[in-house]
């Protein structure tokens, strides 16, 4: 096993939530994007767009608690040349997914959906509020780009990137204060995965809050003389198949980690890609096809198998499944 890995890239243990970073970024970008309008369904305080409501009240459109109308209306706003950003919780995006399918994606609108409160990261609100299906569902819509940034810095950069991008986008933010993964010099490009820690025995491909946990897992693995590479796969669709194939070739085993059902999200996307390019053992860290529950995010991560020790165990299992000659 390779004994050396670079120092963990975790910058801090707490920080801004992604939703706050997104909301502040929208306000800052508003003058640069004069067509930008923000759509809200009475949860601006929750999604972070209360910053925009305050800074640009004339471009803040209130739809009341009626997400289906809001989602389809974004199609109309885009049709007349505005740049609509639909904001609500991830579960309510699922409620309006048919509107996103027909009136945004099929109609080829340049509209953005930004969902706060995804996954177990929602915490105490419990199972009804924890969307664990959104990445899978939105990924299955033709032409929809799907993004899940890892921390507040990346959420801010991704906000600019989706406004510059021409086409429908679904982007997750996050409710809870997120660990900082990236420094201010970080850059973000839609469709590009990024190796955030080098390693040679196994690659952990993660998105969202799981990137920080994957870095912690890499530390745990290093102590056990397993060198884990960590990839931040912030764009789930289109997936960076080239980077995945390279990592599979260079490390021989892959673990995916996401705050989402193990079916259909990042894990599904990675498996589909590698099946076509460079098949290798893959282990899936995520919620195992069950609903969530109330609890603090870190408690839930432990209880549902998303925490760093779980990722580390999955990595060891992936390594053990390598063909004998590759295991060294």
């Amino acid at each position, binding site marked *: 096993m390779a004994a050396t890995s670079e120092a963990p890239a975790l910058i801090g243990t707490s920080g801004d939530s992604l939703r706050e970073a997104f909301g502040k970024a929208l306000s800052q970008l508003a003058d640069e994007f004069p067509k930008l309008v923000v759509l809200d369904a009475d949860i601006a305080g929750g999604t972070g767009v209360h910053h925009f409501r305050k800074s640009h009240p004339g471009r803040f459109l209130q739809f009341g608690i009626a997400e289906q109308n809001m989602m389809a209306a974004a199609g109309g706003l885009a049709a007349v040349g505005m740049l609509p950003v639909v904001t609500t919780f991830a579960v309510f995006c699922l409620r309006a997914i048919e509107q996103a399918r027909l009136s945004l994606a*099929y109609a*080829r609108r340049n509209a953005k959906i930004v969902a706060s409160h995804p996954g177990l990261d929602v915490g105490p609100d419990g199972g009804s509020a924890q969307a664990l299906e959104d990445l899978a569902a939105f990924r299955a819509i033709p032409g929809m780009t799907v993004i899940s940034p890892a921390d507040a810095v990346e959420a801010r950069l991704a906000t600019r990137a989706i406004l510059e991008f021409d086409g429908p986008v679904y982007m997750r933010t996050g409710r809870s204060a997120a660990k900082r993964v990236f420094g201010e010099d970080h850059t973000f490009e839609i469709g590009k995965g990024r190796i955030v820690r080098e390693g040679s025995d196994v690659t952990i491909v993660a998105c969202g809050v799981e990137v920080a946990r994957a870095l912690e897992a890499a530390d745990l693995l290093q102590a056990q003389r397993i060198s884990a590479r960590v990839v931040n796969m912030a764009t789930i669709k289109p997936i960076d198949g080239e980077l995945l194939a390279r990592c599979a070739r260079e490390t021989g085993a892959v673990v995916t980690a996401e705050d989402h059902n193990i079916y259909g999200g990042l894990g599904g996307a990675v498996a589909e890609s590698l099946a076509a390019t460079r098949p290798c053992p893959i282990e899936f860290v995520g919620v195992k096809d069950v609903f969530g529950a109330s609890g603090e995010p870190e408690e839930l991560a432990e209880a549902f198998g998303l925490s760093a020790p779980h990722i580390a165990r999955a990595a060891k299992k992936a390594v053990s499944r390598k063909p004998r000659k590759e295991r060294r």
Partner: protein
Amino acid sequence: MAASLVERKASPAVPAQDLVREIEQATRFARRHVVSAIYHAGSGHPGGGLSSADIIASLFGAELNLWPDSINDPDRDRFVLSKGHGAPTLYAVAAHYGFCKPRDALRLRRLGSPFQGHPHVGDLPWVETSTGSLGQGFSVALGMAMGLKLQKRAARVYTLLGDGELQEGEVWEAAMCAAHHRLDNLCVIIDYNKLQSDDRNANIMALEPLAAKWRAFEWAVAEIDGHDIPAILSTFRRAAATHGRPSIIIAHTVKGKGVPYMENVPQWHGSVKLTPEQADEALRALGASKEEIKEWLDGSDL
């Protein structure tokens, strides 16, 4: 052509007789086209297509500030067919007014044809948005009206809903929202033919008292005979002069209008296959001559 229509749009509330006659001509053409297209396609929704022909022809013939050469003009009026299954009527009227070729629009519901079973903006830009899931076209039209107001444009937005469509919850979300935002540049028309896919509205999910519902939502409400073209035209003008709230025109119509054996029979909601005999009888009822019927039913070039 464009200039003369501009003048018409500015014309007084009582529409000129020649304009009414011209629109009647368009509806005759549209109804025959709808029957023929559905016959050639082997499937489609004739009932609601025939009930809405006078409304859509009145929009394209007089009310909409829209011409084939202005489909990219940001100041154009928009029409959204929220009841997307009425697509053949939209195609037929659009063909009559030069947005597409009439024979092309007979290639309905076929692989490779842009004239899909429900309108798709990716294939035909002048349909303004893709519809076919009831309720959504209304919300899209609302979003257009909102955006046009933000841009301080005078353009108006019209959307046609089916009566059964009003059972979608999204419709009432949009109804509340349009009134709240005082979207007086938005006009909804209900094709109130009283029938939906399986049965009468009243037996599936009652809509009445319908006008009272919309009044309670603070809309400007008009009720008209949806086959009376002068009434349709003057009601559009009144709606355009309404300030501070959106308008709704509840247009009482006859499902299958113009084809006696289809009129008021729910089974013709569709999607149905027309036999050559049925298509022939329908075209005869719509006043087509023997020669014309032969031409309509000839699909050799489609």
